[in-house]
């Protein structure tokens, strides 16, 4: 084929493909398997299940791995939103009661009368086995934060086969302890997995065994389970088949005998599978929501799945060029007041996002949310944003606000902001999402109306995270000014949404180095006090102090579910619970 012809054909195929896609709108309307003994569930695009061990390590941390592991080994305390509201789902837990001491410095747990799939009882020794493994290898455990579990668990005392007591280093809020720490415990089959009798050697042995994905269905190690399912097959390409555990004696009996978890390389491939009817429980993107009728006509129901998450853009307070500006509250207020979250949520996200004004998720009602955060302390107003800047020594020059009155006076630019500083900032934003690109364009446009120049640079999400770390002004990596990694939500919380990682001084995920001693005290108080007043005060404080640019919280997923599949709520913690799925018709 001549080069000219190749070029023509390449171009022609590009256009033909676009024209065909533009014209396509039909669908086959066939069902998946036609059987109520199985279900085909679509895993998120580009995700391949790769870890069976119910102990996450940094390299294998993924909510879908956790969901699969929880279907095999039931957690001690399932504290999630799978029952329709955030709380302890006792049906899906091995523990039946958690009695906190009067001083909130220890808890005594009661285990249910449960058995492993090999018939042996689930006992306190199985929990102690997990406890010892984590204590001895905490630095390799993905859930580890210094000062938190297991550091703040000072002792484990076995009372009897079905009772044990964990002692803490100080008093803690019982709800926080249950939701964020005790919920990470999974009783493990000590009689099968404790090969060496040494926690470090056992850790190495189990992790090495878990690296062999092709052995998940055949290795006897993984056959002793406590959960509603066992592994029937586990392909290295990502397809997982779970079969009901006939020996399961817990509260969440599996409703469907066979669960097929299907991997997809792209969201488009998954959408095409949905259109062909080969998926029972899948998803579409927000931009596809206007095709809802075509899926409904095919026998599906479109169900948005909101996440227990917040979405934001961190400022880098240590950036040499703009850090001093970001440290001025009036400047952050001007930025926040320039962003029309309601329109973004309605137009860009097609109604699949809710405006977020603070550190507590707002897609769900909760007792953690303060009235201040709920009421939006800085409503959208370009004129108010401009006034904030012009009232603090900024004047518009060539369309960009410029500091013309430096100094620390009430009507001056503020400490560290030099004369002539232009209000120009750049975001490093996650690539690959049309919705995110559109949102960034809209934000750029509305900030420009205030006189703030906002430029956009994009990179894959892993690059964004690696290029926007915590830093000091003298480091070359500290050139980043704003970061966005929240296409599907920036931060998913545990059930109790504390901000110790995000907004506490030197917190592990406090990327922009935000620091406020009053907020630090509120965060500490929220984890130790047994009332919700402290976390509401924390919610109000950060809604007003703007440590980041608050943005609309998108739904975790726009689910497309085959009619007749029911009996479950979509867990805001972004886990799926196959035992709850049932064919109702």
């Amino acid at each position: 084929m001549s080069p000219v012809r190749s070029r023509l054909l390449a171009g022609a195929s590009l256009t033909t493909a676009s024209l065909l896609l533009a014209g396509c709108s039909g669908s086959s309307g066939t069902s998946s398997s036609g059987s109520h003994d199985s279900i085909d569930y679509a895993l998120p695009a580009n995700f391949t299940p790769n870890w069976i061990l119910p102990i996450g390590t940094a390299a294998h941390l993924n909510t879908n791995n956790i969901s699969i592991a929880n279907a095999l080994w039931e957690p001690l305390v399932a504290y999630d939103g799978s029952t329709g509201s955030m709380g302890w789902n006792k049906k899906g837990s091995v523990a039946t009661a958690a009695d906190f001491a009067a001083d909130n410095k220890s808890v005594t747990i009661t285990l249910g009368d449960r058995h492993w799939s090999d018939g042996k009882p689930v006992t306190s020794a199985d929990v102690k086995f997990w406890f010892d493994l984590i204590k001895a290898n905490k630095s390799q455990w993905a859930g580890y934060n210094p000062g938190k579990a297991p550091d703040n668990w000072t002792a484990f005392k076995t009372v009897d086969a079905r009772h044990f007591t964990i002692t803490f280093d100080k008093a803690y809020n019982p709800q926080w302890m249950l939701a964020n720490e005790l919920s990470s415990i999974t009783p493990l089959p000590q009689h099968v997995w404790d090969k060496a009798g040494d926690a470090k050697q056992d850790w190495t042995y189990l992790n090495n065994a878990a690296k062999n994905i092709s052995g998940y269905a055949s290795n006897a190690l993984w056959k002793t389970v406590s959960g509603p399912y066992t592994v029937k097959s586990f392909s290295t390409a990502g397809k997982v088949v779970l079969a009901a555990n006939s020996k399961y004696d817990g509260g969440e009996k599996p409703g469907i005998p066979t669960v097929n978890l299907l991997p997809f390389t792209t969201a488009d491939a998954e959408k095409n599978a949905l259109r062909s009817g080969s998926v029972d429980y899948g998803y579409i993107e927000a931009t596809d929501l206007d095709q809802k009728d075509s899926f409904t006509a095919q026998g599906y129901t479109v169900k948005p799945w909101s996440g227990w998450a917040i979405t934001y853009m961190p400022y880098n307070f240590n950036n040499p060029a703009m850090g001093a500006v970001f440290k001025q509250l009036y400047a952050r207020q001007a930025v926040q007041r320039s962003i029309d979250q309601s329109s973004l949520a309605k137009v860009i996200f097609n109604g699949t996002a809710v405006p977020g004004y603070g550190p507590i998720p707002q897609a769900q009602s909760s007792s953690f949310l303060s009235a201040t955060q709920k009421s939006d302390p800085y409503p959208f107003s370009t004129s108010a944003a401009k006034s904030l800047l012009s009232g603090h020594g900024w004047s518009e020059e060539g369309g960009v606000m410029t500091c013309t009155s430096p100094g620390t006076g009430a009507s001056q630019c503020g400490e560290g902001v030099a004369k002539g500083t232009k209000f120009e900032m750049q975001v490093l934003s996650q690539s690959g999402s049309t919705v995110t690109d559109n949102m960034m364009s809209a934000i750029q446009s509305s900030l420009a109306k205030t006189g703030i120049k906002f430029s956009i640079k994009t990179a894959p999400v892993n690059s964004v995270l690696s290029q926007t770390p915590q830093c000091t002004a003298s480091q070359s990596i500290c050139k980043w000014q704003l970061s966005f990694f929240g296409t599907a939500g920036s931060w998913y919380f545990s059930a109790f949404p504390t901000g110790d990682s995000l907004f506490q001084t030197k917190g592990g995920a406090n990327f922009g180095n935000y620091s406020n001693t009053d907020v630090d005290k509120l965060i500490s108080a929220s984890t130790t006090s047994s009332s919700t007043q402290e976390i509401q005060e924390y919610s109000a404080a950060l809604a007003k102090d703007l440590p980041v640019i608050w943005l609309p919280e998108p739904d975790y997923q726009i689910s497309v579910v085959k009619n007749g599949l029911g009996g479950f709520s979509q867990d805001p913690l972004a886990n799926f619970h196959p035992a709850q799925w049932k064919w109702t018709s």
Partner: protein
Amino acid sequence: MSVQSARRWGLVAQFPAPLKARFARNKLAVAGLVVVALFFLFCFLGPVLYSTDQVHTDLTQVNLHPSGSHWLGTDAVGHDEVGRLMYGGKVSLLVGLAAGVLATVIGTLWGAVAGYAGGWIDAVMMRVVDAGIAIPALFILLVVSAITTPGVTGLIVILGLVSWLVPSRLVRAETLTLKSRDYVLTLRAIGGSHSRAITRHILPNSVSTIVVAATFQVADAILLVAYVSYLGLGVQPPSTDWGGMLSAGLTAAYSGRWWLIVPPGLAIILVVCAFNAVGDGLRDAFDVKGRG
């Protein structure tokens, strides 16, 4: 003013009449030239006659159908689609042209030096070319785009640096035949330098090969820009190009919003075909060896 005096003053293109006539006889090539000219007028003069705001978004005007006020509707953030085509076309044409020219310049110099020097220098330089050709350009572009986010200038440089290999081979072949011509040998015999031989004799006599190669390079570069932008790795918002428009519009493929997909798709195919037709016409007019 006579034709001779006009030509002397540079008012008539120095294009040999028989070549111009031969080019004009190729109807497809002439049509290509017209299409290219129309697209340049559309993209560079169009915004003067049809003014739209392509910088600010308007969330009250998103995804509107074609109408009297928006001839090709609006996109997902409220940009007028006709204006967007002009705006994106500027980037596509500018990057395509500049990258094509850059690739041709690099390739010409590389090929001329390699062919003229001969021996081990030629062998080393051409093995570099062989190695470069063995790596798919799209692969290199994707790797570079994953590392850095290119602007318009960056895209031009990157595309130019991955596209010069083919022109260098063509020019080298031409140089090998030209360097043994009497006028080159005479120049060397009377003490003329190598650089003078290349710049004053070999390159001017290779102009037909270079011009034809440049035309195809421009077409290739426009297509490469479209590829890269289609994959989401092209110029950043609010800037765009036709490939980026096509990529953004593809999410609307099942929503019936054809105006987000068909116009940029057609623009790419028309311009690429037109440049190829012009290149074919020039090749025939110059009667370059190897015409197919």
